[in-house]
C-alpha cells in the first residue's frame, strides 16, 4: 500500500475531489497516522485476504480464547487492587472481596468463570486445529507456540487456584510438592524451590503470586503476539478438502492461488463470526458469574484444621484421579516421565506428521486419538468428582445400617451390626447404597464369602483392606461375622465351603432366622 506522506493524503483520496473540508475526526486521525504509520504498518495485516472457505463457525475458538485472555487481564487487574498476596491476609481479603467490596463477588466470578471458559475454549481450539490438520507444513511454528500457550494457560489455572488461598489451595500445593519430591537426587531442592522455603507458607504464596501475575502472563502475552503474527504471515489454514494433500513443494503456491481465486479480507468479512461468538462468550461468562457466582474460598488455610477434603479445580481432576488409581510401583516413573513424553509427542507432531492428508474425513487415526484422550480425561474427571477410592469419612456415624438388615436379628448379630458401624467399616463399605466405595458393598457379602473367609478377611485384611486382627477383640470379630453372614438377599443362598457338609451340626445351633444356608 503506497501513499504520499501528506497529512491530508488519505482524506483527499477518500473524498475524491469533493470540495468539503475533511472533518475534524479525519484530520485528527490523519495527524496521528502521519506519525504512527498505522495504515502503512498494520492495515495490510488487518485486511489481508483469507480463503473464503474459512468463514466457518469452526474457526472461532482461537479468537474466543483471546477474548477470554483479555477479559482475564481486565478482571485480574481489578482483583489485584484489593487482593492481598500475603499468607496471613489473602483468605481474609478474598472474603472481603466476596462480601464487602462492592461487586467484588462479581469480578471474582468473572475471573473464575473466565478461566474455566478460557481452558475449555483453548481445548476446543486445539482439537479443531488438530482435526483440520492446521499444524502441518508450513504452520509448524504456529503449532509449537500454541503448545507453549496451552501449557502457560494450564500454569495460569494452577497458580490461579493457589491465589484462592484456602484449604484446597494449601493441600493442592502439598500434592505438588510431594510430586516434585519424587524426582531422584534433586527432589528436596525442587520442593524448596517451589515452596520458597521449608513449608507451605508466606513465601510460597508470594512466589505463586509473582508467577500468576508477572511471569506467566508476560510469557503468555509475548507468545500470543507471536502466535497471531504467525497466523497473519503464514495465513489461516484453509478448509481442508479430502484428497488435497500437503506437499512441501507446492503447498505455499497452491495456498496463494486459493486466496487470490477465492479470498476475502479478514476485516470485515472474515472476522464476522469471531465477533459474534466472542461477544456471546463474554455474555456467557458474565451470566455464570452473576447466577452461579465465584468459587470459594473454602476453609481458612490453617494446616492444623485437618477435617478437610481437598479437591483440585475441575481441570486437574483427571490428574487427581490418575494419582489415586495408578498402581504404586508405576506412580513415580509416570510422574517423572509421562509429562515429558506427552509433551514431546505433542510438540513434535508437525515434524513426524507434517505433510499429507489434512481432512478429518480421511484421518481415522486422528478421530481415534481424540476420542480416546477425551474418554480417558472424561472418565478420570468424572471419577475425580465422586472419588470412590476415598473413604467416606463420616459414613460410620452418618449412615446407619438399614433397618431391614437387622429385623429379626439375634442379639449377637445386632452386636455385630454395631461393631460394623463403630469400627468405621462403613467408611469404605456401603450398605443399602450408603457409605464409602473404597471396598465392595456389603449388601450381599454372604453370597460371596463363607463364614471362615469372612473371619480371615476381617482379621488379616488383604486386597486393599487393612487387617483388623489387632483392633478387634475375638468377641467383636465373632459378632461382626455373625452379622455379615446374614447379608444375603432374599432368595440368594449364602456361600458355603464345598468341602464341608451342607448342614453340619454346629451351624444348626448358630444359624439365625435367615442365616441358614438355604
Amino acid at each position, binding site marked *: 500500500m503506497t501513499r504520499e506522506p501528506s497529512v491530508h493524503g488519505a482524506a483527499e483520496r477518500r473524498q475524491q475531489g469533493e470540495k468539503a473540508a475533511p472533518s475534524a475526526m479525519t484530520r485528527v486521525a490523519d495527524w496521528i497516522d502521519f506519525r504512527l504509520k498505522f495504515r502503512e504498518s498494520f492495515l495490510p495485516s488487518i485486511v489481508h485476504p483469507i480463503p473464503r472457505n474459512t468463514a466457518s463457525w469452526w474457526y472461532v475458538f482461537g479468537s474466543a480464547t483471546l477474548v477470554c485472555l483479555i477479559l482475564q487481564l481486565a478482571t485480574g487487574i481489578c482483583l489485584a487492587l484489593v487482593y492481598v498476596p500475603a499468607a496471613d491476609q489473602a483468605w481474609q481479603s478474598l472474603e472481603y472481596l466476596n462480601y464487602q467490596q462492592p461487586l467484588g463477588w462479581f469480578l471474582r466470578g468473572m475471573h473464575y468463570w473466565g478461566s474455566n471458559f478460557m481452558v475449555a475454549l483453548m481445548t476446543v481450539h486445539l482439537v479443531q486445529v488438530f482435526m483440520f490438520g492446521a499444524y502441518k507444513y508450513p504452520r509448524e511454528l504456529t503449532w509449537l507456540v500454541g503448545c507453549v500457550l496451552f501449557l502457560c494457560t494450564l500454569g495460569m489455572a494452577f497458580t490461579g487456584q493457589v491465589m484462592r488461598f484456602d484449604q484446597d489451595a494449601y*493441600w493442592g500445593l502439598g500434592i505438588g510438592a510431594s510430586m516434585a519430591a519424587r524426582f531422584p537426587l534433586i527432589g528436596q*531442592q525442587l520442593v*524448596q524451590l517451589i515452596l520458597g522455603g521449608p513449608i507451605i507458607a508466606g513465601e510460597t504464596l508470594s512466589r505463586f503470586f509473582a508467577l500468576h501475575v508477572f511471569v506467566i502472563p508476560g510469557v503468555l502475552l509475548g507468545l500470543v503476539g507471536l502466535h497471531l503474527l504467525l497466523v497473519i504471515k503464514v495465513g489461516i489454514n484453509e478448509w481442508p478438502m479430502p484428497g488435497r494433500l500437503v506437499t512441501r513443494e507446492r503447498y505455499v503456491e497452491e495456498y496463494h492461488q486459493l486466496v487470490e481465486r477465492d479470498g476475502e479480507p479478514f476485516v470485515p468479512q472474515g472476522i464476522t463470526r469471531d465477533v459474534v461468538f466472542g461477544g456471546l462468550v463474554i455474555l456467557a461468562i458474565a451470566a455464570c458469574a452473576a447466577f452461579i457466582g465465584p468459587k470459594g474460598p473454602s476453609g481458612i*488455610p490453617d*494446616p492444623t484444621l*485437618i477435617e478437610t477434603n481437598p479437591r483440585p479445580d475441575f481441570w486437574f481432576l483427571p490428574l487427581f484421579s490418575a*494419582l*489415586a488409581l495408578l498402581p504404586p510401583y508405576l506412580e513415580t516413573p509416570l510422574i517423572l516421565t509421562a509429562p515429558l513424553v506427552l509433551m514431546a509427542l505433542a510438540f513434535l507432531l508437525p515434524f513426524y506428521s507434517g505433510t499429507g492428508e489434512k481432512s478429518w474425513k480421511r484421518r481415522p487415526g486422528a478421530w481415534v486419538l481424540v476420542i480416546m484422550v477425551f474418554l480417558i480425561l472424561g472418565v478420570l474427571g468424572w471419577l475425580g468428582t465422586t472419588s470412590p477410592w476415598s473413604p467416606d469419612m463420616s459414613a460410620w456415624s452418618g449412615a446407619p445400617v438399614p433397618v431391614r438388615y437387622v429385623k429379626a436379628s439375634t442379639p449377637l448379630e445386632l452386636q455385630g451390626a454395631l461393631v460394623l458401624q463403630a469400627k*468405621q467399616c462403613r467408611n469404605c463399605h456401603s450398605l443399602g447404597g450408603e457409605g464409602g466405595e*473404597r471396598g465392595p458393598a456389603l449388601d450381599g457379602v454372604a453370597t460371596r464369602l463363607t463364614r471362615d473367609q469372612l473371619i480371615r478377611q476381617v482379621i488379616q485384611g488383604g486386597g486393599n483392606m487393612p487387617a483388623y486382627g489387632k483392633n478387634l477383640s475375638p468377641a467383636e470379630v465373632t459378632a461382626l461375622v455373625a452379622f455379615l453372614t446374614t447379608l444375603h438377599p432374599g432368595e440368594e443362598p449364602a456361600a458355603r465351603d464345598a468341602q464341608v457338609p451342607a448342614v453340619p451340626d454346629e451351624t444348626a445351633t448358630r444359624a439365625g432366622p435367615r442365616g441358614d444356608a438355604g
Partner: protein
Amino acid sequence: MERTTSGAAPGSTRRSFLLKIGIAINVVAAALVTVPIVGYVAAALRKRSYQAWVRLGPLEQFPVGQTRLATYENPFIVPWDGETGKVACWVRRTAASQLQVFAVNCAHLGCPVRWFPESRLFMCPCHGGVYYEDGSRASGPPPRGLFEYEHEIRGDELWVRGGQIPTLANPV
C-alpha cells in the same frame, strides 16, 4: 549510514571494535547480574535441611493409650505466614515414656490423615491411603508408612525435631 568511515576495511573499523567492547561489557554485566538473581530466587536452597527442636507441649496432654493431634509453630517462619506457619502432628503414647509422633501428611501426596480411634486407623481423604495405629501402611497408594518425627522427653515436656514439609525426598 550516511557517514562512512574512510580508510579502513569493513570489520576492522573503530566502530566495530567499539561494538565488540560493548558486547564484552554486556556479557560481563549479564553474568554479574545473573549470579545474584539466581542466588536470590534459589535462596531457599542455601539451607539443605531445616531442622530444629520445638516444644510440643506438656506430656500430660497425651494420655497413655491414646493418639492425639498436637500443633506447633514452625521454627522457620516469616512474620506474614499467619496460620500457615502452624504445623499439626499426631502424637501416640503407648506407655509412660513410649511415644510416636507422626506427621499429619500422608506419605502418598501429603494430604492430612485423620485418626479414627475406634478402628485404630489413620485414613487419608485424598486418594484413600490407610495406616495402622503404629504408622505402618495398611492399604491404598502410599509407598510407605507415615513420616515419623524424632522426639525427646525433656522434663515433663515433649519436644520434636521439625521444620519442613515431610516428603519422600526428605522425611522429617
